[in-house]
């Protein structure tokens, strides 16, 4: 049994090494980084973080990212809820085809859509707004949310619905007061996955923004090229992008696997 535990430990160590290096570098001065190799920061500094928290172009990057990710999560989960209910409870014309078509949207490479997206959102006057990125990310997040929620709803027996109707509940009241609390784990997982995929996606977010709604990840790319090679700053910015994910993941830790299996374990 002891020998067996070695495999996960080695794997986690492998996962943590590059992250450690990023965090260690964020506490070093640029001089120290460029002057040579050191396993731990020799002159521990918070300067890199100070720059990020005081310079608006930096911290607005974070606010922008969090704004469009939140808008996207709310939209995705809200429209996916009734749709998932329909898929899990009713048969209707074209339901299977529609369900599969939703999945195919995950297969389209974002690189393919970058330019048409730019033209589309410029044409409707949404370019460089948080809403544009939030709506664009719906392309892959809504199908995902529908799949996950449908998986969770499938596990709720239909008798629950029927009993509620017999008891005289109207549909909206049943849905909000009885059904939603029953699948709240599913809603949490769906929201988590929408958050996650919107947070990590950069190509579309970068294409659809210029100044006003620019995501943190794009700010980083720009700094890397314009200000020479400020590795310490880059490392600090990178470290800060890991934190939101680490926080939200803690809340759904017991359901992550079920979410990745699209609610079907």
């Amino acid at each position: 049994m002891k020998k067996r535990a070695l495999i996960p430990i080695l794997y986690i160590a492998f996962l943590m090494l590059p992250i450690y290096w990023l965090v260690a570098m964020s506490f070093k001065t640029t001089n120290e980084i460029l002057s040579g190799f050191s396993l731990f920061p020799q002159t521990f500094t918070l300067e890199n973080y100070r720059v990020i928290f005081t310079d608006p172009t930096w911290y607005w990057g974070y606010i922008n990212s969090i704004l469009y990710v939140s808008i996207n999560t709310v939209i995705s989960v809200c429209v996916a809820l009734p749709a998932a209910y329909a898929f899990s409870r009713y048969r209707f014309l074209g339901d299977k085809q529609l369900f599969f078509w939703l999945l195919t949207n995950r297969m389209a490479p974002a690189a393919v859509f970058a330019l048409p997206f730019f033209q589309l959102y410029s044409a409707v006057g949404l370019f460089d707004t948080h809403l544009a990125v939030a709506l664009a990310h719906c392309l892959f997040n809504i199908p995902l949310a529908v799949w996950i929620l449908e998986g969770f709803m499938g596990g709720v027996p239909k008798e629950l619905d029927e009993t509620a109707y017999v008891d005289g509940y109207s549909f909206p009241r049943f849905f909000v007061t009885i059904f939603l609390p029953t699948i709240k784990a599913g809603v949490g997982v769906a929201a988590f996955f929408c958050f996650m995929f919107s947070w990590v996606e950069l190509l579309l977010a970068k294409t659809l923004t210029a100044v006003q709604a620019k995501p943190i990840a794009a700010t980083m790319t720009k700094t890397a090229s314009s200000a020479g090679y400020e590795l310490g700053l880059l490392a600090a910015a990178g470290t800060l992008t890991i934190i939101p994910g680490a926080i939200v993941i803690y809340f759904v830790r017991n359901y992550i696997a079920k979410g990745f299996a699209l609610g079907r374990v």
Partner: protein
Amino acid sequence: MKTQNQKAWFFVLPVLVLVAFNALIPMMTVVNYSVQETFGDNLFFWEGLGWFEQILRSDRFHAALGRQFMFTGLILLIEIPLGVIIALSMPRSGFWVSICLVTMALPMLIPWNVVGAMWNIFTLPDIGLLGYLMNTTLGINYDMTQSPFAAWATIITMDVWHWTSLVVLLSYAGLVSIPDAYYQAAKIDGASPWKVFRYVQLPKMKQVLTIAILLRFMDSFNIYTEPFVLTGGGPGNSTTLLSIDLVKIALGQFDLGPAAAMSLIYFAITLLVSWLFYTLMTKDDQK
């Protein structure tokens, strides 16, 4: 059983409108470009299927497609078995499960370009942890910007680092859903660990592994940001995967026609292979 109810369409309508807005309009734009030639100034000429022929015959496309299949193939060959092995050796209950799940899921929550930048910093020959270890401590000449082999090894390692956890989490979810009674029965029959794996665990993991392979195929086939940030497609063209090449043609050279045609071919290949995987792996269930 589900009841027949056409009114259910009203529930689906918002999803349909939002996804169609994002999927159909850009897709039609791409189709539109793919059959036209442009010299700028918004002047377009009918080109027919010329671009498709040109792309399908071009050596550049074949080379990029070959690299893409090699990348995806290697990724699947490494990540799927590795993920299953790690899931099998994880604890089934207790305090350590949460620790394992959270730390393993962490890489998947890092923005993709940060993943690329992080691995870039990690592998710098003089000042990166891995680069320093390889070059100075082990004395292996390792420089991504010089050697195509090193570049390939690095993007593969990066993807293994980034996504193996997905396979682990899915396999693990499949494993914990096996009732204890199955193991007890296997024990009474005196089954070897291999037999337990082959006849008890693997069948139970089949569904989740199907999802894992499909997701890993789709995502690795469409990968763009991480290798682009890490190697930029170099040295030379050695790590120019399909999507990197596509963006080069579309935004670098602004050849919209060929880029659009290539996009559609690309999408068609992804759809076809995914569908093949899916039908092959679910074939047994329908018997």
